[in-house]
């Protein structure tokens, strides 16, 4: 549970002065950021720039999740880690780097693999409510969720379905990006009445059609660009959280004050995030962006539809027929 600060400290005002000047953000938007917690699933090529810019901007809490350790072959794109961090847990390495940049962010490293067993607990109320000091009296019967927004920075198909289903089941917006070779894609799912990942991709791709970064390669700055974009979309949602009609959760602040990086546009529109119900495609070879209008939420969707068949998390490796890692399994023979 995280509460927005009641007011900015003098140090906050100094640190964030250049963004407080923006009428779209302002003091209320900054306070909204301070009350928002974001779970970053994957501290790799996307997660590094994302965590960097969310922390710099003053997000309240940042969960950094990765099961992997830093390797030399990561450093061409995973820029929060350094040579000296080789062999260390990525979650810890990223967390330390983020703290150097902004020690006022509550940074929580998780050196573990997201799984059907831990995902909901982690997103909703982990560590358990009982262990936390109660910061918000009067809301004990509606414990706040641990994370308000989830960012999918993972690198494999099973994890992408797992993250989606966990977000649908817990009612969280999912800001999802991906990158391969010189291309990137970004969409905001399960937000403002828009579609979820399964609405678009009801059936997983045949495993033999999936190329990962270990096989296909990736130019490091392409996930860099996509991770920065992902940060922008998270900041849009987080900065307007107080007034976003899209987000109504138990125990949420009854805050109707303005603030929010898209507030000039979205107060009469839904969904507010510019990438909701949109696919942003980037091709680095010709530096071309394209924005695609996506289908709405599908009534027949197995996860978010009218009669969902996914009522709990399942075995996603079996569902997808592939492992929840981008490491080349053949190397382990």
């Amino acid at each position: 549970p995280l509460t927005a600060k009641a007011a900015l400290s003098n140090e906050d005002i100094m640190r964030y002065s250049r963004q407080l000047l923006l009428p779209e953000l302002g003091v209320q938007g900054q306070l909204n950021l301070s009350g928002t917690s974001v779970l970053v699933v994957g501290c790799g090529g996307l997660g590094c720039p994302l965590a960097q810019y969310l922390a710099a901007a003053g997000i309240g809490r940042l969960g950094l999740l990765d099961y992997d350790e830093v390797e030399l072959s990561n450093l061409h794109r995973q820029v929060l880690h350094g040579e000296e961090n080789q062999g260390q847990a990525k979650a810890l390495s990223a967390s330390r780097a983020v703290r150097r940049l902004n020690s006022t962010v509550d940074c929580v490293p998780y050196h573990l693999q997201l799984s059907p067993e831990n995902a909901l607990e982690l997103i909703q109320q982990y560590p358990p409510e009982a262990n936390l000091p109660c910061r918000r009296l009067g809301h004990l019967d509606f414990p706040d969720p641990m994370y308000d927004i989830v960012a999918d920075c993972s690198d494999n198909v099973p994890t992408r379905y797992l993250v989606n289903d966990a977000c649908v089941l817990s009612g969280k917006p999912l800001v999802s990006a991906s990158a391969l070779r010189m291309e990137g894609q970004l969409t905001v799912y399960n937000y403002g009445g828009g579609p979820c990942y399964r609405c678009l991709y009801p059936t997983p791709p045949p495993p033999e059609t999936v190329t990962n970064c270990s096989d296909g390669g990736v130019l490091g700055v392409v996930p860099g660009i996509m991770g920065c974009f992902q940060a922008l979309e998270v900041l849009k949602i987080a900065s307007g959280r107080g007034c976003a009609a899209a987000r109504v959760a138990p125990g949420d602040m009854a805050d109707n004050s303005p603030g929010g990086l898209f507030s000039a546009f979205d107060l009469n529109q839904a969904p507010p995030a510019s990438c909701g119900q949109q696919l942003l495609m980037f091709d680095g070879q010709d530096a071309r962006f394209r924005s695609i209008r996506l289908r709405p939420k599908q009534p027949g969707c197995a996860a978010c539809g009218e009669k969902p068949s996914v009522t709990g998390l399942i075995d996603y490796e079996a569902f997808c027929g592939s492992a929840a890692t981008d490491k080349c399994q053949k190397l382990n023979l």
Partner: protein
Amino acid sequence: MAAPVGVHLEFGGGAELLFNGVKEHQVTLPSQSDPWDMKQLLVWIRRNLLKERPELFVQGDTVRPGILVLINDADWELMGELEYQLEDQDNIVFISTLHGG
């Protein structure tokens, strides 16, 4: 007889690798008695453009899971999917979903 239809095809996200790495193709679909629809376009692509491993692109009479089809920059689900009738100068994109990070 409907006149020949010129359409611009694009492949991305790796789908272009099934087409010799060529991302953009300007093609002309020959005139036929009925208007061209997406279902027929997929058959035409399979016969005329796909050089190898067609199962990585089409399965049954539609695209394989994990390929998103865009008609004039909109998700084909908004346009009628396989039943959409092609118009001259339409822009059809087949984009393979990326999962890397």
